């Protein structure tokens, strides 16, 4: 079966900055595809090109048979997007925003009424539906932004950081609604810099960094692909010296050491049972007291670190300003 979205050499340049660099990617119908990367990786720019808001500098994408360059109106009819930053005018009320959105997306009066009411109730917005946007918190505005795409139920739903600024309970509610949207037949593109969210929701994940797609597969396969099947987290009572880290790197079992904080190491290794005593010995000799040791499963953080050499927080800090 042909993919519902086929991205071919998609590129976007803003002056000298290449925000998206010859991106090639296929998205299958009915999947939740996680587009993962730090801020500035090119995720949002890619999504804006897919929704025909931005014109590509090079390359194109085929959306269910329609080229975004030559048939943007047709491609756009298939897509709904919930933006990273809520796009709401301050003088509107919540009901105004959602009702108008439903109207312009072609929903009948009856569908509109029932879907808007459903979304308002599900997202805990019903009691405040007549409040104006300027009186709402960032989290509430974000819920309104997500509600738009849930009401629209498009063939391809794009959600850009759907749970940013939202509390834990709200996050889980939105995740369930996104899953339900997929179960009803929508293909979902989830852009996020929250690795846990991508891991939790996605059937497949594409990791973007500096405008390029580094790797793309299911979260399980990505985690299996990194060498050093075990991860050991070591917390110490004082900062771990560079000398201690260099000593540990000499061990055959150790593949990679990520210094998350100066007193927190995340060590990728093979044969943890043999390596842990050696690590402890180094720290003991360096007079660094250990407060905890934990053997963990690899996560998408580790995948990101493996492919970029940076933690997602480091990559975020180094992201180019546009």
């Amino acid at each position: 079966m042909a993919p519902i979205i086929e991205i071919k050499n998609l590129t976007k340049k803003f002056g000298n900055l290449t925000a998206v660099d010859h991106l090639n990617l296929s998205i299958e119908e009915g999947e939740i595809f996680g587009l993962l990367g730090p801020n500035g990786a090119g995720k949002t720019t890619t999504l804006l090109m897919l929704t025909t808001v931005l014109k590509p500098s090079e390359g194109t994408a085929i959306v269910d048979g329609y080229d975004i360059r030559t048939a943007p109106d047709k491609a756009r009819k298939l897509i709904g997007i919930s933006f990273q930053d809520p796009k709401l005018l301050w003088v509107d009320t919540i009901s105004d925003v959602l009702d108008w959105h439903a109207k312009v997306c072609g929903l009948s009066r009856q569908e509109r009424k029932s879907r808007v009411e459903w979304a308002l109730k599900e997202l805990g917005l019903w009691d405040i539906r007549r409040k104006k946007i300027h009186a709402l918190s960032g989290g509430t505005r974000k819920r309104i932004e997500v509600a738009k795409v849930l009401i629209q139920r498009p063939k391809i739903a794009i959600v850009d950081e759907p749970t940013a600024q939202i509390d834990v309970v709200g996050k889980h509610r939105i995740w369930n609604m996104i899953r339900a949207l997929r179960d009803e037949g929508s293909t979902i593109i989830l852009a996020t810099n929250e690795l846990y969210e991508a891991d939790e929701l996605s059937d497949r994940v594409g990791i973007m960094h500096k405008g390029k797609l580094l790797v793309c597969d299911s979260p399980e396969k990505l985690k299996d692909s990194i060498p050093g099947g075990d991860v050991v987290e070591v917390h110490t009572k004082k900062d771990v010296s560079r000398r201690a880290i260099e000593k540990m790197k000499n061990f055959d079992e150790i593949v990679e050491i990520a210094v998350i904080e100066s007193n927190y190491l995340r060590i990728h290794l093979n044969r943890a049972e043999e390596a842990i005593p050696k690590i402890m010995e180094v720290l003991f000799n360096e007079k660094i007291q250990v407060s905890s040791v934990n053997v963990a499963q690899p996560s998408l953080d580790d995948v990101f670190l493996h492919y970029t050499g940076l933690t997602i927080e480091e990559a975020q800090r180094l992201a180019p300003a546009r």
Partner: protein
Amino acid sequence: MKKLKEVLYVIERDVRMFLNHKILLFMRALWFIAQISLFGLIASRMVIIPNYFEYYAAGITVTILYSTAVFIGYDIYEEAEHGIVEYLLSLPISRRKLAVGRSIGGGLRSFIYVAPLMGIVLALIGVRNPLNFMLAFFSLFLFAFGVAGMSITIAMGIKSADKFDILMGALDALIVRLSTVMYPKVFMAQANLMYSELANINPLTFASELFRWGAGIEQYLTFGPLLSVLVIVLFFSLFTLIGIIFYERRLEGGGWQ
């Protein structure tokens, strides 16, 4: 029908958005009432020309129609600031329908707002010939669309909200004062012949003269009623078309960024 509906939704949004600016609309109405009840009444006692109060009240109505139709340009900047442009561009409607809807919505909402104020003025000055007034009313309707198109064109041409604000302030000062909204052309010519020449090509002159003619305050128009209506139709057609083209092209080309 479905295609028309999409344009209607865009118009509806613009009208609603405008009517949501309650404080602004209230202040604008207050300004209008002050202009008539204070300036108009006092100045009419100083000015020697007969029925100056009626003359001024009609002129100031056209002025407020102009200044509210211009408001669509400010909305475009506000939308850009809040990222609404991206939202509008992502919607499943064509850019052309979006542009047409904006242009019509910008004019229509100003007319909806000014219509009750116009009613107050007409109650004060009376309507002597309803048929003439219908023609004048229709011309003012088109005039509002033309001004909205002009505002969209300028807003999409200038990327800075501050520059737009300054330019529109200067344009407002010139376009209102170099027209016959506040004084007859004969006095403009006495001050400087060029002033009256410029007033002759100013759409505000045509709109205010038509309003006075429609209300029966003036019997004769400089260019006659038909030619005046034709000028307004041309103004409407030109700027509505340019506004639509400019909005559509700028949006598609990323000129809003």
